[in-house]
């Protein structure tokens, strides 16, 4: 039975596409039936006409039977569907203007939304690449900045062994790994991560080849030199060769055996960086040699990140309750290190948001803007569809009148709308890819692969598509609903008489809204552009041209701090002799690379803070005596560092003006003493005040900063700054060779001009954001113009008769022109006003989020207002001109 039913459907499906028995064949069979019936009736003695009649009455009509046969032959709804799609395509082709505008509108709206969401996803929302990522949370004590949760190894062990709300806790810590893939190959710097032995098991990640770490490999400090490769690293360095298992690689000079390769989908636990090699946590003291404390003993050496998988049935709240109790226990047991150390638990998204608050602001803004563009796009399509409604309603009514079913009409319009949004959707994928491409310009200037992967997010594309489909279907179906609901004859008789008031109000509102939204976007874009231009024109406060930077970290190869310092000095000395080098300075980082991670609390010596008083955190930069001259950072008062500021002389510091203002407003800070950091080191004496520059972002508000003397604060990693006579890039090769000549294995990284680094870190992001907002504003305005044009043209069209009469009784062309233009201009002025107000409001929001936005940007406002007025005038003028050319006789006759 089932098989036969199945067979029937197959045959019918086939029949829907190709007819096995033609209509004529079927008809012939029916006719032969009638003929036989007639013959028999005649045999019974009926008269010929009567026989025919009896036969037909008896057998039923041929046409009805044919219809039933046709329905049985194929699948009528499939045939209808195909017919509707064909008809829909024909409709779209016949109105190319309408189709183009709708499709382009939708694709811009959906594409922009998808691109922005992909961006947000890459930076903030994408779940960890592990099974059940929603159960994985971060725990630990807030660090000094409060942005990250950290823990010491001893705390980790205590929490891990006592917790009941977690199925497992993993600890990890990333480190710079100079990896040589051959015994005497040149080491390259990669991102390594020390992981607890249960790392892969708790996260639920199975190695692609080889095995995960064994528990005993993470039991004894410094014993088991094994390593698991990240998938990308394996592909790049070994070409995906499975025979790497068992081979040795050097990690910071420690030969390690490769035991496994992580799967491709597991890129690590950080959205910015990709982990490249994994080493057991117990190897910590061997692979990281510049540790300042005993990592497995010191309870206050908090540098591990801990993530845990919540036990089934345990909520985040339960975990927090338990951890609060645990923290109290630890504080009682180890008051010296754990007093006032809360242990917090954060979900992945919470952790990311707290880590980077400005990012959240940026993403929120971009998402709002994209949503605005999507709104404008949908409003546009809605407007276009609505303007076609009267014509379509008539058509629908006509078709109803000659017997079309309501369901069929609805289906047909539904298909048409669907086709429209599907076309838009296909184009949207292209737009979204272009957008994602723009986001890829965000680069972090480093040789390490810390590039967040901006991939097109399918969910976002889907959501955008859904919105466009719903809006298209909703507005596309109106004519069918309207015509199938009401009185057919009324519709047919007076096609223009219904639905005018409400309909036009709705459209006016849509178009006004479009203008308002796009004006807001444009105001924001000009505002941002002008503020950024101003910031860029002001510059960062140090020179960025004719400077090359190059970072060295000899401790990766096991140099002691003293050896490292000697090495730096030797490099600097030799570099001064390189042709083309004007001068050389050593600094902990290039002026544009001073990251927020160098932040330390600073406090004037002798001042006691109230417990609830907030400490001031200042960035720190360790520089030698040549730094200020090379970077052209002016010293406002006091002196520069000198070669005599050494380990044996009094400890000195130079602070920036902003820090001076914070602590010694109105006084002379020279000679004052400052405590830097939590450590118990002696305070430093302030010997100079430098001009405040931009350290992290051009848009930052002034940040306090302390320069410490290189001679007094040995560093494991230093950056060589070389001032060049010509193009700084020409110095890259000789300087590399110089380092190689001193130590052939020495990894050299971040070799680039300071200008390049500055552009990548501080300028590109502005360009991208401005480009983006401006693109959205222009797209929005373009869409709004089309909407306005459509509305005015539509209104003028409906008033053809009225215009005809007016002209017949003496109105001249100018009057008519003004009358029609006035309609459009009123709308655009209302939209403009609303948009400008919203833009002014947005300025405050932007200032709050980014510290941007000047007090008054009249010029920007005037510019936007003028442009919008001019183009909307044009959009209204074109249809108005056409209306004024109406020949009154023709206009009146056509009705």
């Amino acid at each position: 039975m089932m098989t036969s039913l199945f067979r029937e459907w197959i045959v019918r499906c086939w029949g829907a596409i190709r007819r096995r028995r033609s209509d004529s064949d079927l008809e012939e069979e029916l006719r032969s039936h009638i003929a036989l019936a007639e013959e028999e009736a005649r045999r019974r003695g009926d008269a010929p006409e009567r026989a025919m009649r009896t036969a037909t009455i008896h057998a039923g009509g041929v046409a009805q039977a044919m219809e039933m046969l046709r329905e049985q032959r194929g699948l009528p709804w499939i045939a209808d569907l195909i017919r509707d799609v064909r008809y829909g395509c024909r409709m779209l082709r016949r109105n190319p203007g309408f189709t183009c505008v709708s499709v382009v509108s939708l694709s811009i709206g959906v594409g922009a939304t998808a691109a922005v969401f992909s961006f947000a996803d890459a930076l903030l929302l994408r779940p960890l690449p592990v099974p059940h990522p929603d159960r994985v949370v971060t725990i630990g004590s807030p660090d000094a900045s409060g942005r990250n949760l950290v823990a010491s190894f001893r705390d980790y062990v205590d929490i891990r062994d006592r917790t009941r709300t977690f199925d497992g806790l993993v600890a990890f810590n990333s480190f710079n790994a100079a990896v040589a893939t051959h015994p005497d190959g040149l080491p390259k710097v990669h991102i390594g991560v020390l992981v607890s032995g249960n790392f892969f098991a708790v996260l639920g990640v199975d190695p692609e080849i080889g095995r995960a770490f064994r528990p005993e490999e993470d039991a004894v400090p410094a014993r088991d030199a094994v390593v698991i490769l990240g998938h990308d690293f394996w592909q790049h360095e070994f070409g995906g060769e499975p025979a790497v298992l068992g081979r040795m690689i050097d990690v910071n000079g420690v030969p390690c055996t490769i035991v496994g390769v992580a799967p491709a989908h597991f890129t690590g636990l950080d959205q910015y960086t990709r982990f490249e090699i994994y080493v057991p946590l117990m190897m910590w003291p061997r692979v990281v040699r510049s540790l300042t404390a005993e990592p497995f003993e010191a309870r206050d050496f908090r540098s591990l990140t801990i993530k845990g998988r919540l036990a089934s049935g345990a909520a985040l709240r339960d975990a927090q309750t338990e951890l609060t109790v645990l923290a109290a226990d630890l504080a009682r047991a180890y008051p010296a290190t754990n007093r006032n150390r809360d242990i917090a638990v954060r979900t992945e998204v919470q952790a990311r948001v707290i880590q980077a608050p400005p990012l959240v602001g940026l993403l929120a803004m971009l998402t709002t803007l994209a949503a605005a563009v999507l709104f404008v796009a949908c409003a546009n399509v809605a407007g276009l569809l609505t303007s076609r409604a009267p014509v379509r309603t008539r058509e629908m009514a006509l078709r109803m009148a000659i017997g079309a079913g309501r369901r069929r009409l609805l289906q047909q319009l539904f298909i048409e709308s669907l086709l429209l949004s599907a076309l838009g959707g296909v184009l949207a994928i292209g737009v979204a890819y272009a957008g994602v491409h723009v986001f890829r310009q965000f680069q972090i200037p480093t040789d390490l692969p810390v590039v967040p992967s901006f991939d097109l997010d399918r969910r976002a594309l889907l959501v955008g598509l859904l919105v466009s489909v719903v809006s298209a279907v909703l507005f596309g179906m109106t004519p069918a609903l309207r015509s199938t609901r009401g009185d057919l004859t009324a519709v047919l008789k007076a096609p223009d008489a219904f639905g005018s008031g409400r309909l036009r109000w709705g459209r006016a509102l849509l178009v006004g809204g479009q203008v308002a939204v796009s004006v807001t976007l444009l105001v924001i874009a000009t505002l941002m552009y002008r503020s950024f231009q101003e910031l860029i024109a002001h510059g960062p406060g140090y020179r960025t041209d004719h400077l090359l930077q190059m970072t060295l970290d000899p401790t990766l190869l096991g140099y002691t701090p003293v050896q490292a310092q000697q090495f730096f000095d030797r490099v600097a000395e030799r570099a001064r002799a390189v042709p083309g080098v004007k001068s050389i300075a050593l600094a902990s980082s290039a002026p544009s690379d001073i990251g927020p991670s160098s932040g330390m609390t600073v406090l004037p010596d002798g001042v006691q803070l109230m417990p609830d008083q907030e400490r001031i955190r200042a960035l720190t930069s360790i520089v030698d005596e040549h730094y200020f001259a090379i970077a052209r950072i002016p010293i406002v008062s006091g002196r520069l560092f000198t070669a005599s500021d050494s380990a044996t002389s009094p400890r000195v510091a130079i602070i920036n003006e902003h820090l001076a203002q914070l602590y010694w407003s109105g006084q002379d800070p020279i000679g004052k003493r400052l405590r830097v950091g939590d450590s118990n080191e002696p305070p430093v004496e302030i010997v100079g005040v430098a001009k405040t520059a931009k350290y992290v972002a051009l848009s930052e508000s002034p940040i306090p900063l302390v320069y410490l003397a290189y001679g007094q604060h040995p560093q494991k990693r230093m950056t060589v700054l070389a001032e060049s006579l010509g193009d700084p890039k020409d110095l890259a090769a000789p300087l590399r060779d110089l380092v190689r000549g001193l130590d052939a294995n020495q990894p050299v990284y971040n070799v680039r001009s300071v200008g390049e680094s500055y552009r990548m870190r501080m300028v590109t992001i502005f360009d991208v954001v401005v480009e983006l907002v401006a693109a959205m504003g222009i797209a929005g305005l373009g869409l709004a113009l089309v909407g306005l044009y459509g509305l005015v043209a539509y209104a003028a069209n409906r008033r053809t008769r009225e215009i005809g009469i007016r002209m017949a009784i003496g109105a001249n062309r100018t009057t008519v022109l003004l009358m029609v233009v006035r309609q459009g201009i009123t709308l655009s002025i209302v939209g403009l006003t609303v948009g400008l107000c919203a833009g002014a409001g947005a300025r405050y929001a932007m200032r709050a989020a980014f510290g941007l936005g000047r007090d008054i940007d009249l010029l920007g406002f005037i510019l936007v207002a003028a442009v919008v007025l001019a183009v909307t005038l044009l959009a209204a003028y074109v249809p108005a001109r056409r209306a004024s050319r109406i020949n009154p006789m023709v206009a009146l006759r056509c009705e």
Partner: protein
Amino acid sequence: MVLQTLATLGPLHGYALAGRLDQVSRGALQINMGTLYPGLMRLEQRGFVRGTWGVTENNRKARFYSITPAGRRQLVAEKAEWDRMSSIIHRLLRGEG
């Protein structure tokens, strides 16, 4: 019923089939073309009957339907099912058994 008729009488064209059903049911079942031919088509689509063009005894072109092996199997199954149903209904209505 169509299958039963075809099984007992052999290949028939549509009109003869209708006449036969009419005759067997003593006029209770008057089937018009709109019912008969879609029904035949469905049976043909399910593979129970096969239709071929032929010529009647009076030299008229007509489409003759014959039962297929699958049709015979289906007939047996349907008959059994009908017997089962009718006996159930019979028992229910008469309260017998």
